[in-house]
């Protein structure tokens, strides 16, 4: 039919609008992301955060019983925070490794959410250290 | 070390030869122009693609009809315009072929 405009552009425009609407709906319900922090930035954050740091000092306790206790330090800094964690401990976990764990700072101790401890693979593309 | 040197030398020679090959093969070429389709040729290609598209669409319509994806009514409605389109495309191509042949005869050789 002459003069009939192609609906392709309309479809694309509507779909983009629909996708954005879905997206906005999701973020308004689920909120923004989880903040990624270093131990030195923990102060003042009350909610659930993702803490990244280097394990220093001794680790004690049992992650499958009362809880594994260790200390996290800024990867490039001196601020530390004690952590208590329950759940699966990755094999690569040990003092000196960089880890990420979710949790909440409660009374000076970072209480971790179970099974969120992740250790970074110390291999592949690391530069010569 | 000498192995490395030998391999390196061979590689260097091979690469130089590869890059120079077209010039070594034809030091005095009859025609050094890059065969790029000009606008006339582009039109012909476009028409050829239209023709192939129309023919393929007809073939697919037949198949869809036979496998029941397209009802008899739809088939009747769609096949006529497709056939017309295919005929047009074929005619346009023939016309173009005639015209270019005519031009070639007039100019007496390659364009």
């Amino acid at each position, binding site marked *: 039919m002459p003069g009939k405009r*192609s*609906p*392709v552009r309309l*479809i*694309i425009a509507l779909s983009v609008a629909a*996708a954005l609407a*879905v997206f906005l709906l999701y973020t308004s319900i*689920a909120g923004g*992301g*989880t903040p*990624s922090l270093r131990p030195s930035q923990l102060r003042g954050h009350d909610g659930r955060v993702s803490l990244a740091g280097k394990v220093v000092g001794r680790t004690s306790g049992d992650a499958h*019983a009362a809880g594994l206790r260790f200390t996290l330090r800024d990867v490039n800094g001196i601020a530390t925070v004690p952590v208590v964690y329950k759940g*699966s*401990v*990755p*094999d*690569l976990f040990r003092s000196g490794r960089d880890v990420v764990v979710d949790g909440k700072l409660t009374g000076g101790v970072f209480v971790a959410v179970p099974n969120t401890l992740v250790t*970074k*693979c*110390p*291999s*592949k*593309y*690391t*530069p010569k250290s | 070390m000498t192995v490395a*040197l030998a391999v*390196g030398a061979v*590689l260097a020679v*091979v*690469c130089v030869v*590869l*890059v120079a*090959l*077209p*010039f070594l093969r034809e030091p005095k*070429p009859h025609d*050094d*122009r*890059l*065969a*790029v*389709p000009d606008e006339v*040729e*582009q039109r012909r*290609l*476009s028409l050829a*693609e239209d023709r*192939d*598209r129309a023919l393929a669409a007809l073939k697919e319509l037949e198949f*869809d009809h*036979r*496998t*029941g*994806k*397209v*009802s008899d009514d*739809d088939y009747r409605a*769609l096949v006529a315009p497709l056939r017309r389109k295919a005929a047009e495309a074929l005619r346009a191509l023939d016309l173009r072929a005639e015209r*270019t042949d005519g031009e070639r005869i007039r100019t007496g050789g390659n*364009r």
Partner: protein
Amino acid sequence: MPDLGRAALVTSLLLLVYSFTVGSWAAWRGRRRLAESAQNALLGSFAATLVAAAVLLAALARHDFSFRYVADHTSRELPLGYTLTAFWGGQEGSLLLWLLVLCGYSCAAVLTARRAGREILAWVVPVLGLVGTFFALLLVFVASPFATQAAAADGAGLNPSLQNPYMAVHPPMLYLGYVGLTVPFAFAMGALLAGRTDERWIVATRRWTLAAWAFLGVGQLLGAHWAYVEIGWGGYYAWDPVENAALMPWLAATAFLHSVMIQEKRGMLKVWNVLLVALAFGLSLFGTFLTRSGIIQSIHSFTQSSIGPWFLGFICFITAGTLTLIFWRLPLLRAKTRLESLVSREATFLYNNLLLVALALTILWGVVYPLLSQLVTGQAATVSKPYYNFFLHAFGLPLLLLMGIGPLVAWRRASLRALGRTFLWPLATAVAAGIALLALGAGSSRVGVIAYTFSIFVLASILLEFLRGTAARKALGDSGWLGSFSSLIARNRRRYGGYVVHAAVVLLAIGVAGSSAYQTVRETRLHRGDSMTVAGNRLVFRGYETSMASNHRSIRGLVDVYRGNNYLGRLKPGKNQYFAEDQVSNEVAIRHDLLTGGDLFLIADQVNADGSIDLKALQKPLVNLIWLAGIVFIGGSLIALWPDAREERRLAARYAGATASL
């Protein structure tokens, strides 16, 4: 020896620069011999890169620890296989692999296109040369694999979790995919630069794109399988940035594979196709950038390295160049045909494209969110798994449904009555299956039931396509069912190969739905003699056994599995302790249930000094369908890729006239 390697890389760089600069000049000025010379330069760059690769491989094979790369990534007691595959175990080596594959593909593209018709190569060569130049520059000046040091006595060894056949093969597979997307991109840009309006570039790169896409898909499945059996947390995909880095270009390439079909059949969507192929290529570069630069926090921790900024710069350059080119050639790309109906196969392909691109972009958003939030609010934030899962469901489930709808809809325009008839059987099957599933208790997961029902719908519609097609062919000739079936596929390789690939995707969807929505997880501490139950399996802990191997000490928990009164076998989850690398690795125990396709997955979470074990047990229904899907996927891709002599002849005739008159 390292000098030879360095010299070979410099040679390759020079040849690539030549093919880029001289190739551009030759294409612009229309100089045939110069253009051929630039093409040959690409061939030469492959030879040079091959020599460089051989030097590195030889150094690895003979444990030459004066090469810093060899010392960093291998050790004397590493088995030969892993010593050789350590080639791509580190940054410099994997860049060299990238360049090698790129030059190899360029070489193949030049040689095959020459047979088909040289004129198409004119502007393709400079684009390939440009991309190659970037990687060669990195290898020569920033990240050389041929750095030397005082020969050490022994090397640092390879991370034990990477000493696994899947991990050995996974990178080259991925690279064949990533790098393979460069070829269609180069041809698309080449066509734009040459000002061509025809579809030659699509016809020429059809098989390339399909092959690259297939390699990328298989590579990801291999990686997922490795994560499942080797890392062993019980899953196969963690939405880690590095995993997403491969998924995003794959999704864009899937969209591209579909939309080129529309351009072929109807001459529409020319601009969209060029944008898509550029997006796929850009995402593949971005993926390489992500895994190398450490800019996004990932458990893979490819920490800060100097090549990050380079990649980012190159990606920006490519993006800017592509957009400029498209904008410049926009008048040429205007389509003559219009979308006639919202209910047509073209329309379903369009919806498919939109969903795929939407999914890829939401994943991209999730991946760069930490960076963006850092820039905007000063505080880095990450998105979590629920984010990815939400959008996977929101966009993936409709995509699944479309896979079943698309093939049943006719081109141009489909009447609703015809649709009703063709949809009847698949719809009825799906509804019946849905009711049966709910009755069996699958209602515990809404998403799971929906996924299963959609999957049944798609499988039914694919089956119907094969049946109807075979019946139609049989009605034409006088061969039997089998003969008609094989001739049906032989004459429509792309279509029916595509259907097989769709079936593979459906199997994947069923496997993923089953093993995530319907899995059972239990964890307890067991002392010797204690038992736990997971999904009807009773697990009894019998104690530990330890043993020594050449490079590690292993400790295994002995777990007997019973179902009712039947003894099913003994599983041994445990840990390996590696001496040289001073690392402990998790060794999971998996029992495959061949009847249900599910797995019983045991993880020895913690070995305790008092002889007890913290055992985590998962029952994952239908998970093996995922790996089966990989095999079906390969089969379908092969069918679609298989050369069709008749079609080749027809296409050759169409384009042969291009140079015949000159």
